[in-house]
């Protein structure tokens, strides 16, 4: 994974004093995360299965939206290839703030078993990631666990962060 010049310690880690407005806004945001359908490879099938009847995603308030303008969570499920890297950055930029990224599966985390010329070794070389989810392919329940972790993290943040939007560079 790359070492970027991101100043993560800005807010995270230290207990931030949250006002009621903060808590209300973040409660709303965390319980209605709309996910962007970004299924690239095999993990997309597990993402679809987690949205289907047995492991329902709608109970988290999550709906899969196809347009990046309407989504605030991007679940990168599958291998990112060098040909595609340009487009994931473009789609990430098109998403509106606040936005979060879950990198699902080994291929998205670090390039996975594909240690080859055409695979980006980790989606975080190109976009900043909030939650890394290991597995090949991770079970649908694991994806939902990751979403729950993200919800917890969102509730800990302050709502109106003076955002410098989250960019790697």
């Amino acid at each position, binding site marked *: 994974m790359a070492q970027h010049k991101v100043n993560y310690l800005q807010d995270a880690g230290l207990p931030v004093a949250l006002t009621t407005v903060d808590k209300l806004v973040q409660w709303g945001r965390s319980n209605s995360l709309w996910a962007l359908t970004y*299924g690239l*490879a095999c993990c997309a099938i597990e993402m679809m299965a987690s949205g289907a009847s047995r492991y329902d995603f709608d109970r988290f308030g999550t709906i899969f939206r196809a347009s990046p303008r309407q989504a605030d969570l991007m679940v990168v499920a599958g291998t990112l290839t060098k*040909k595609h890297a340009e487009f994931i950055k473009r789609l990430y930029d098109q998403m509106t703030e606040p936005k979060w990224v879950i990198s699902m599966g080994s291929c998205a985390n670090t390039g996975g078993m*594909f240690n080859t010329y055409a*695979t980006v070794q980790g989606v975080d070389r190109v976009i900043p990631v909030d939650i890394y989810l290991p597995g090949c392919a991770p079970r649908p329940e694991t994806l939902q666990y990751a979403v729950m972790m993200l919800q917890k993290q969102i509730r800990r943040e302050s709502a109106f962060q003076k955002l410098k939007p989250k960019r790697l560079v």
Partner: protein
Amino acid sequence: MQTPNRLKPFYENLVFEKDDNRMIVNFGPQHPSAHGQLRLILELDGEQVVKAVPDVGYLHRGIEKMAENMIYNEFLPTTDRMDYIAASSNNYGFALAVERLLGIEDKIPRRAEIIRVMLLELNRIISHLFWLATHALDVGAMSIFLYCFREREFAMDLMEDYCGARLTHSSIRIGGVPLDLPKGWLEDLEKFIDKLPENIADYEGLLDKNRIWLMRLEQVGMLSKEDALNWGCSGPTLRGSGVAWDIRKEEPYSIYDELDFDVPVTDSCDSYGRYKLYMQEMRESAKILRQLIPMYKESSPEIVANVPEYISAPKEQLMTENFALMQHFVLVTQGMRPPVGEVYVATESPKGELGFYINSQGDPYPYRLKIRAPSFWHTSVLQEMLVGTYLADVVTIIGNLNIVFGEIDR
């Protein structure tokens, strides 16, 4: 290519308006109904497609080059990730190719063959259910998606009970299968196949005579017989155009020549015919599974071929005998050295003819491995098949062709 700079970071829409009222639309690599990462550049005249250029390669991971650097056994889990919907069929194609190269095809024990065919047919059902789910979702019948996934979950439970993984199985090894069926698996399988025909009848009842489904699928995606053969289509796409070719029947491998099943063929070359084929194939797979259950019960319990030169011994021998462990060590660290030569083996995967070409020079690593993926050849047909259709039909046709991008791009 437009190079981005600080002033104009990226260009937005790819719409060029020329004088002739034609529009070029990019059906981009991220699209809800693109079935993966298909980029189609369509030139539209009003609503009709005049020219279609598929742009693939967004999932090219270099699997063939990886094979030249890995030993045969090590490469097997990588084959899972090609047609990731029915993973065991890729494993089986590769294992069969290597076994034919080694010349041990007739030494595979009977129980291993039976388990392999069970897994293959179960994967066929899983793949066809997935096809129906996504195709119906694209066309608009969204509830079928949830119903099919519910069935699929039961089938994936069976796979998970067997090999531990829902999606990427690597459940078939060179020389046999790694595990015997767990206790109670056959009863669960019977329950599953008892329920399956009713569910298929449910879906057919919802879709068969549905006016909207008929309007969207009949006469859409016409593929004549000569075109289908010329473009290299296989599997249900070819059988939907009137050519009765199923590798399981014509060039039988494993124990398919002992099983009694039919292969549905139709000569209405449109999407509706292919839809009916998929539904019938699911029933035939259930029939095959039913025949396999008594055959399993009468087979003797070996599951790995006894060829110590190329294949490691089964676990019970490995853990108790010294020579078996030594040979296993050599085979795992160095890899087995197959004979020098080439082999091309085609099997009938749920998508079509999946072929593996292996050129071996005696090294533990294949010198050249080429994978003949059915979806690759089906996607090239899109160049011709989409001309003259409406934009809404493009989605139907792509869904109907049953393409999966892990295979196309490898």
